[in-house]
């Protein structure tokens, strides 16, 4: 099912990517080509087939719920565009 420009803009909003009208139009074309290509999957009978949930059969690894590496706030914020006193700084969220 092809997408229209309004859908492209809605999906871009969900993905948090600003797109201009012109860009949305270009994206609409290429997204529809990709969606058309993946339509081939509708030819496959998947009745009773389990979806792949794990690439190789292996039990999910578990570990104790404890701190393994902690107290590294300085390392964690070191690459932030704006940080202050161990906190990430973002534009005001609540007035």
């Amino acid at each position, binding site marked *: 099912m092809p*997408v229209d420009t309004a*859908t*492209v803009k809605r*999906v*871009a*909003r*969900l*993905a*948090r*990517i*600003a*797109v201009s009208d012109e860009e949305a139009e270009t*994206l609409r074309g*290429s*997204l529809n*080509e*990709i*969606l058309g*290509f*993946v*339509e*081939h*999957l*509708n*030819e*496959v009978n*998947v009745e009773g*087939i*389990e*979806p*792949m*949930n794990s*690439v*190789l059969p*292996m039990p*999910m*690894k578990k*570990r104790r719920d404890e701190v393994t590496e902690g107290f*590294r706030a300085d*390392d*964690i914020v*070191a*690459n*932030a*565009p*704006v940080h202050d006193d161990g906190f*990430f700084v*973002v*534009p*005001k*969220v609540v007035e």
Partner: protein
Amino acid sequence: MADSELTGLTLAEAQAGLGTRAFSATELTEAYLDAIEAAKTLNSFIVVTAGRARAMAAQADQRIADGNARPLEGIPIGIKDLFCTEGVNSQAASHILDGFKPHYESTVTANLWAAGAVMLGKLNMDEFAMGSSTETSYYGPTINPWRAEGSGAKLVPGGSSGGSATAVAARLCAGATATDTGGSIRQPAAFTGTVGIKPTYGRCSRWGVIAFASSLDQAGPVARTVRDAAILLRSMAGHDAKDTTSANRSVPDYAMSVDKGVQGLKIGIPREYRIDDMPPEIDALWRDGQAWLKDAGAEFVDISLPHTKYALPAYYIVAPAEASSNLARYDGVRYGLRAEGSDVTSMYENSRAAGFGQEVKRRILIGTYVLSAGYYDAYYLRAQKVRTLIKRDFEQAFAAGVDVILTPVTPSAAFEIGAKTKASPIEMYLNDIFTVPANMAGLPGISVPAGTDGRGLPLGLQLIGPAFDEETLFAAGQVIEKAAGTLTPRRWW
């Protein structure tokens, strides 16, 4: 020894020379640093860590002198920009990771340094490993060291690990790390006349490798010979508690399997890989490969992998879906680029609009769409079911006694820069038609140079094996390499 003699050595030969003190790790490293400097036009290295390389080489020389050499002591290698390297820019060739210097080291690179390897720098790639030509890099395309006979046209090295493949082919490093989500190790290896192996999913830790599609991503080496690839993989692979999908199995000494031969091996030829418009030279190459392996004692059997043609469409649902989730973290808050906005949402939207390139945006949007309410079952769930069928095809072939499967790597040799960027995205995606199925099934695949096309450009053959049987791939790959010989580009840069 002259610089070009040093850089002309394979990794195994360099190991031998270091061992007999024919030259030092420092001399070897300096030779490679000079070669990198002289090959800027290829745009394969985007960061050169000369200072670190010299320090590591000096340490290697000390250890060799002390009789404490480790498996890769003093071997200079390049690292794909997708691997986080402590204190060194790691940006996945994306604008959105501008200036990102991790405070940690990926497990694979940490393993290599612990084995004594010397880091030369970071290698160019398609942005976030999304591409088949290394043209989507924020740092501009990497140029293939190969050119068609009688032509000066610039060719792509394939992708996404085009920087790795180019650096190895052009003798700018003794080997390189790479990653493969849909063919990103094997396709560039085929385009540059190098050897590339995508190991079994779980063989190498994904920890510290910038994520693209987590159920498909796998790290592996690009090298000049099958033996070199085997030597590198042994040091890269291994269990890692920090990656929940990392396999808890011991790592064989892969170099020991290189000369095992293929006597009595049963090799499958999947009929579905004979695509309609297969160029005659690819078909001829495939037949050559069969003849060489047969001469070495292998047996051939025709097999069917009926869901092959659905691997690529299913991939273009699964990979973008996982990418849209993995790339949600680039929000202008924690690292990389921030573009201002009037509120926090517009800051996110503007940062991501400015930081991601066209191909990455396209895939994030496809992924967001196929995961969105009302479409999940029709697209993502169906694709995951098809994936089960693709994997089952391979399992049935192996259960019927096939040891390894032989196919071409790509439907063509390297193409010109810009040739496929303007057309439909599908045209670029079709490059991975023979490589994607192994990722979808989690199986190991190796690309080995097997000859050249009519214009003298390298072509590769692929071997796909059962999970965790990389050893058979090395053994069979060696037979192809021995028959076809190694390929070296004529230097023009």
